[in-house]
């Protein structure tokens, strides 16, 4: 299956891209995506367990993904 992975703010700067398409085995979880992301060039500047949202809601690392999901890595927020 295919998911879209989105990066923002300092994470997008570190990885050099705002998003990427990722091909995953069925049954893959958020943790599987994170493992792949943390192996990318520039990922050494990311924390070991970044916050993640799936389809616009915060999600646990154990969350099982589905075809077409939008997975977003959320840097520490600073709104307001």
């Amino acid at each position, binding site marked *: 299956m295919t998911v879209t992975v989105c990066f923002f703010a300092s994470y997008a700067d570190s990885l050099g891209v705002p998003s990427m398409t990722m091909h995953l085995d069925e049954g893959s979880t958020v943790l599987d995506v994170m493992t792949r992301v943390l192996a990318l060039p520039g990922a050494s500047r990311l924390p070991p367990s970044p916050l993640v949202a799936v389809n616009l809601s915060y999600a646990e690392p154990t969350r099982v993904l589905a075809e077409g999901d939008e997975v977003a890595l959320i840097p520490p927020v600073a709104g*307001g």
Partner: protein
Amino acid sequence: MRTALVRKPIDLTALLAEVSDASNGATSIFIGTVRCLNDGKKVLGIEYSAYEPMAEKEIAEIIAEASGMFGVQHIVVEHRLGELAVGDASIAIVTGHPRRAAAIDAMRYCVEELKTRAPIWKREHYADGSRDWVSAVTSREA
């Protein structure tokens, strides 16, 4: 009840009109502004960005929670994105209710939750020409 991410100056007068109701006895407002100093560094401006659809959804949920917890029907939140200068308002939260306690509690709940949960980021521009992403964890927040 309404939330919006906007790219122009926040119009407080319009927001006040929006929550206005003859049954209101109390209106409570929070305005966040870009300040000239952060952690001892002179700030010239801030660039705000967001994961926009999620930020709008998250803020709408926060408003719904505040409405349920405090019984407040009139809440409007605007957060500005883009380049802001010192003194510019980055956020305005306006609540209206017959009683002051509910209006103030709802305002405070919205600002605290928004600062914790809404996927919005800021990059400060300093007088020395450098820029830095700022987080609630690494800086003491306004």
